[in-house]
């Protein structure tokens, strides 16, 4: 059941996913999925386990190859590009499980992350702002494996920002964080978005979703179930919460 929402074509499209399908074995993880993201949008993607959220991320970033369908990024078809080529076009992902270079220091991590795109020699202002906001500036000589769990998550976001993306994919950025850390992260993501970055977030934490999202898309069995504005009283949230309850029970 797909309900078409209004105003899908407003603004300049950052990302357009057309009829995307991906099966693993006999299971359609992503099933003829259509999704558009306008530039400067902050969108949450929610849904129960197995809804195809991470698969969709893998398809957008290029880790998986779709069985059918197309992915357009800033109007350009990137369906057949390698993951690293997509990053160079300005699309970067934070993985679900934290993936940083644990043996290396924070400074070394950031040194590796910046440099593949060779955009400019000028300082990446957004990155230094992020590092300061998240309190990583004082940790630059610490081996990143010794950081706290949430700091590791933040560092991975900073690694993604170091590639100077136009679209940031965040896969469960607040997993395992305390409520205070979740709120800090939420405020951080909102501020990032206000600086003009398009952000697509997958998140389980409904508090986080309520806090940040302008718009929410609910995924279920590889299809889009609902989408709409995220206010506490909206139908979409009630719908999401009811899915939650049915899955969790």
């Amino acid at each position: 059941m797909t309900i078409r929402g209004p105003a899908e074509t407003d603004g300049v499209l950052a990302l357009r996913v057309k009829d995307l399908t991906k099966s693993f074995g006999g299971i359609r993880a992503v099933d003829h999925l259509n999704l558009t993201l306008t530039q400067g949008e902050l969108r949450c993607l929610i849904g129960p386990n197995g809804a195809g959220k991470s698969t969709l991320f893998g398809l957008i970033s290029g880790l998986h190859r779709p069985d059918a369908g197309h992915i357009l990024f800033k109007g350009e078809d990137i369906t057949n590009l390698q993951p690293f080529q997509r990053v160079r076009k300005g699309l970067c992902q934070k993985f679900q499980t934290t993936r940083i270079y644990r043996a290396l220091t924070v400074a070394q991590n950031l040194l590796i992350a910046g440099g593949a795109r060779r955009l400019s020699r000028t300082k990446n202002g957004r990155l230094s702002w992020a590092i300061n906001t998240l309190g990583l500036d004082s940790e630059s000589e610490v081996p990143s494996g010794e950081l706290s769990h949430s700091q590791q998550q933040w560092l991975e976001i900073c690694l993604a920002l170091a590639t100077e993306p136009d679209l940031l994919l965040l896969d469960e950025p607040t997993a395992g964080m305390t409520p205070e850390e979740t709120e800090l992260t939420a405020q951080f993501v909102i501020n990032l978005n206000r600086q003009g970055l398009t952000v697509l977030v997958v998140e389980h934490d409904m508090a986080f979703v309520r806090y940040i999202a302008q718009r929410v898309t609910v995924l279920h069995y590889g299809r889009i179930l609902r989408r709409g504005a995220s206010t506490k009283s909206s139908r979409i949230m009630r719908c999401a919460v009811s899915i939650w309850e049915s899955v969790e029970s």
Partner: protein
Amino acid sequence: MARQDTGLWRVLNGPQELGRGRVFWCLFAFVALGLLAYPAVGSVFALSNLANFCLYVPLGLGLALLWGYNGVLSFGQGAFFAIAGYVYGIIAGNLTEMPAGTLLAAIGGIAASIAVAGAFGYFVFYGQVSNWIIPLLLLVLSLILETFMAQTAGYQWRVGSVLLGGYNGMTSVPSLEIGPADFGGASIAFYYLVIAVMLIAYLGLRLLVNSHYGHVVTGIRDDVERTRMLGYNVARIQIQVFVLAAALAGLSGILYVSWGNYINPSSMGLLAATLPVIWTAVGGRSSLLAVLLSTVTLRWLADTLAVKGGEYAFLIMGILLLVTMLFFPAGIVVTLARRFSSRKRVLGKLKERGAG
């Protein structure tokens, strides 16, 4: 941030290598000067022996880069060593009349190693073959080459005027000659050449591993997917590192034939494939310095044992590897250096506390 540290010295003294203090660099300068001054006191025999031990350093450092820094174990360094050696022998033996014939042969030899490594690397790394299969494929490559070369006895196996020689090997290969300098195995010129090559290879690789590129190489070792998702063409970088390691092994191979005027198929046999791995593991693959030290030391040890103990030499090497793996998984030199530096850090903290 580290990105702005473009000064050569800062890169050279970066965090990816042991020995960053003043004491280390003083010692380094002292040893380097000692090596340069050694011909004044050492006998020709001692010089020639030392040169023989040190000529394996580029090969060892290449494997440290490939395995320790990029995470790809190789049993093929012996093969790249021998390919360069054989090709050098073939070209040099045919161009004896030409003034720069041996130089051309050296270039040709290294180019041959690079070509084989490039072709192999292209398929393996773009095909995303798992990391643990690569060493086995390289071992197979080595053994095939050894088997092939071993049956090239007789006059039908010759290239121009050079006989390949089968299992007896290729004999009377000319030594390297550059201009008026003749780098025969027992010459002071050869000794200096080897020392220079060793120091340049070490410092050059030290610069490389501490550069931005070197950090990306280490990143690939730690997490291939992450590095790819930061916008790097991982396969291309892996091929580059693999080819560089092969070229360094080839450089060692050329120095070896220039030293001994001889090469045979056992240079790419099972022993030749495993020994570099032992040198690298025993010293500690995550440090160029450690591998440099262990390569020279173990070459010396093997030579001494071979003179005194005959066939037990390799048994002792095997036991050494076993002991290292059990008690010093990170390598002897690396483990000791870490212990030393952590003790120093603790002492420094205590001092600070005492002062405060």
